[in-house]
C-alpha cells in the first residue's frame, strides 16, 4: 500500500492538472473534479487491481472503474495519465478539436481507461451493473466501481438501477456517491432534497459505508472496508462527503465553480496552493 503522504502528493499534482486543463481551454468542470481528486487518486494508485498498459474494453480479470458524472472528466484524465494509461502530455489537448479527451468521457476515440460514454447523467450505475453481472457469469472475482454525483441521483434511472442491484444481489459492485451537497442551481436541499439519503439506499438492500472523501487516510481505509463488504449478497455504496473545489481556497465549498473555468490570474493563485509533485504536463 502506498503511504498516505505519497497519495496526498499525487492528489496535489492531479489538482494542479485539473486547474490548468480547465483554465487553459476556458471550459470544463473544476469544482467536482477537485473534490474527487483524493478518491480517484486512492482508487487508481492504491485500490484498483488494474493493468494500465494492457487496457481492454472487456476488462476481464481486472477491477473496473466507471465515471457516471462524466463532467468531472479532468480528474479522471489526470489520474489515468499519471497511472500510465496514456502520456500526460495529452492532457494539454483536453476539450480541443480532435482530442481523445472529450469534454465528457467516451471510448469512441480510443482513450485507454474509458469503457463507456458518460455525460448525460444517471447511466453509469446501470452500466457498472452490466459489467458486474458479466463478471459473475464469467467467474471473475474482481470488482466494479462506479462514481456518481449527488445531484445526479435526481435522475430516475439511478433508482431503477439501485433497485435492480439490490434485488439481484449484485455484490461485486461498489458505488460511490460524491455527496458534496452542491449542484448547479444550488445546494441539494434547495434544488431537490435528497430526503433521508442513506435510508433510501438501505431500503433497497444496499450496504452503506461513510467516507470523508477529502481525508486520504479515511478514503483509503473506507475503500478497504467497502472491499471487505463485497461478496455478501448486497451491493455496496460509499456515501462520500466531499467539499466541491477542495484544495483551492477560493473554489472550496461552493457550487460557483461547478462548470466555470478560472481565469489565468485565478489559475496562478490556485497553483500556488498546490504543490507540483509528479511534474506538470
Amino acid at each position, binding site marked *: 500500500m502506498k503511504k498516505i503522504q505519497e497519495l496526498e502528493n499525487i492528489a496535489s499534482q492531479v489538482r494542479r492538472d485539473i486547474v490548468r486543463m480547465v483554465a487553459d481551454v476556458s471550459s470544463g468542470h473544476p469544482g467536482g473534479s477537485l473534490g474527487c481528486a483524493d478518491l480517484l487518486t486512492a482508487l487508481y494508485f492504491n485500490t484498483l487491481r488494474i493493468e494500465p498498459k494492457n487496457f481492454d*474494453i*472487456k*476488462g*476481464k480479470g481486472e477491477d473496473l472503474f466507471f465515471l457516471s458524472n462524466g463532467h468531472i472528466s479532468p480528474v479522471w484524465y489526470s489520474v489515468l495519465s499519471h497511472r500510465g494509461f496514456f502520456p500526460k502530455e495529452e492532457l494539454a489537448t483536453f476539450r480541443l478539436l480532435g482530442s481523445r479527451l472529450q469534454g465528457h468521457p*467516451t*471510448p*469512441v476515440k480510443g482513450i485507454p481507461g474509458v*469503457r*463507456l*460514454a*458518460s*455525460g*448525460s447523467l*444517471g*447511466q*453509469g*450505475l*446501470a*452500466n*457498472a*451493473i*452490466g*459489467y*458486474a*453481472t*458479466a*463478471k459473475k*457469469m*464469467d467467474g471473475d472475482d474482481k470488482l466494479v466501481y462506479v462514481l456518481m454525483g449527488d445531484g445526479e441521483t435526481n435522475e*430516475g*434511472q439511478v433508482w*431503477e*438501477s439501485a*433497485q*435492480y442491484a439490490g*434485488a*439481484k444481489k449484485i455484490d461485486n459492485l461498489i458505488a460511490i456517491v460524491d455527496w458534496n451537497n452542491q449542484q448547479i442551481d444550488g445546494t441539494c436541499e434547495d434544488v431537490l432534497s435528497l430526503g433521508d439519503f442513506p435510508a433510501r439506499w438501505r431500503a433497497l438492500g444496499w450496504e452503506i459505508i461513510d467516507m470523508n472523501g477529502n481525508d486520504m487516510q479515511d478514503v483509503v481505509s473506507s475503500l478497504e472496508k467497502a472491499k471487505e463488504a463485497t461478496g455478501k449478497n448486497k451491493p455496496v455504496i460509499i456515501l462520500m462527503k466531499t467539499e466541491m473545489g477542495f484544495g483551492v481556497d477560493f473554489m472550496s465549498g461552493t457550487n460557483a465553480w461547478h462548470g466555470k473555468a478560472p481565469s489565468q490570474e485565478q489559475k496562478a493563485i490556485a497553483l500556488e496552493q498546490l504543490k507540483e509533485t509528479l511534474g506538470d504536463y
Partner: protein
Amino acid sequence: MKKYTIINEKDTRSGFGAGLLEAGKQDENVVALCADLVGSLKMDAFAKEFPNRFFQAGIAEANMIGVSAGLAGAGKVPFAGSFAEFCTARVYDQVRQSVCYSNTNVKIAGSHAGITLGEDGATHQILEDIGLMKMLPNMVVINPCDYNQTKKATIAAAKYVGPVYLRFGRPSVPNFTPEDQEFIIGKAVHMNEGSDVTIIATGHLVWQALLATEALEAKGLSVDLINIHTIKPLDDEAILKSVKKTGCVVTAEEHFLNGGLGDSVAQLLGRKLPAPIEMIGVNDKFGESGKPAQLMTAYNLDSKAIICAVDRVISRK
C-alpha cells in the same frame, strides 16, 4: 409473376423468440433481458433453456438498456426486449449514450410495433421508432416482414457486431418467405421483376404489397417489388437499380411518413435519381384502439391503398 404462398399464419414476435433461442444455442455469449414482458416477447423459451443468461429487468427500461450496454462492453451479446415504444422512445437518451455513442454490441428488440398492436391504443402503438432509431449514428434498423424473416433477422443480429434495433409485431400475419431464404443485413430481397413501377415495402406491409402486385399484374401492369427488411443501412443499389428501370416508386410501411422507410427512399432518390414517389404510411397522427386488421384499413395501410398509390405515381411519370 413469381408465386408466394402462405406457409402458415404466425406473429413476427414468435419469429424473434425462435431466433433468440437459436442464437443462444449458437453463441454462449448471447444473453437476454426483458422488462416484464417475457410472454409477450416470446422470450420464455430462451429464459427456460438458459436461465443463467436471462435477466428479468422489471418495468425499468432505462436500467435495462444501461445494464445491456455494460454486459456488451464485457463481451456479452445482449438482446434487450420490450414493447417497441418502451425500448426506443421511452429510453432514447440511454440508447443514444450507452448504446450508440458508446458503440456497444446491444440488440434492442422492440415488439408490438406499429398500429397493429391494436386494442391498447395510441400510447402503445409506436409509429416513430424507425425514425428515432435510424437517426442515431452506428444504429442498424431492421424491420422484418414475417415469422421466417424475423427469425433469420434475429440470428443475423446476434452475429453482427454493433448496435441493432430489431422491430417486430404482435398479430398473426401470413408467413410466406421461404425458410431457406438468405438474410443479409442491409441487402434487400427482390420479390418480383417488373418494369412499370417499383414498390418498396417493409414489415407487415410486404404481404399487402404482394397482394397489390398480384392485383396490378392481373390488370396488365409490370411491378418491381422490393422487400426492405433493413431500413438502415438502406440497400441503395437495389433501389436505384429498380427505379432506373421503372421511373417511379411507391413505398409502404406501418410507420409515420416522417422518419420512415419512405423518407429514406425519398432522400436517396432526391440526391441520386429524382423520380415520382408516393408513400403509404401514417401521416402525422396518432393511432387508436381497434382490431389490427380494421386499423390497417382505417389508416390506409393495405393493398388497396398501395394500388391507388401506384395509379397516382404512374400518372405522374
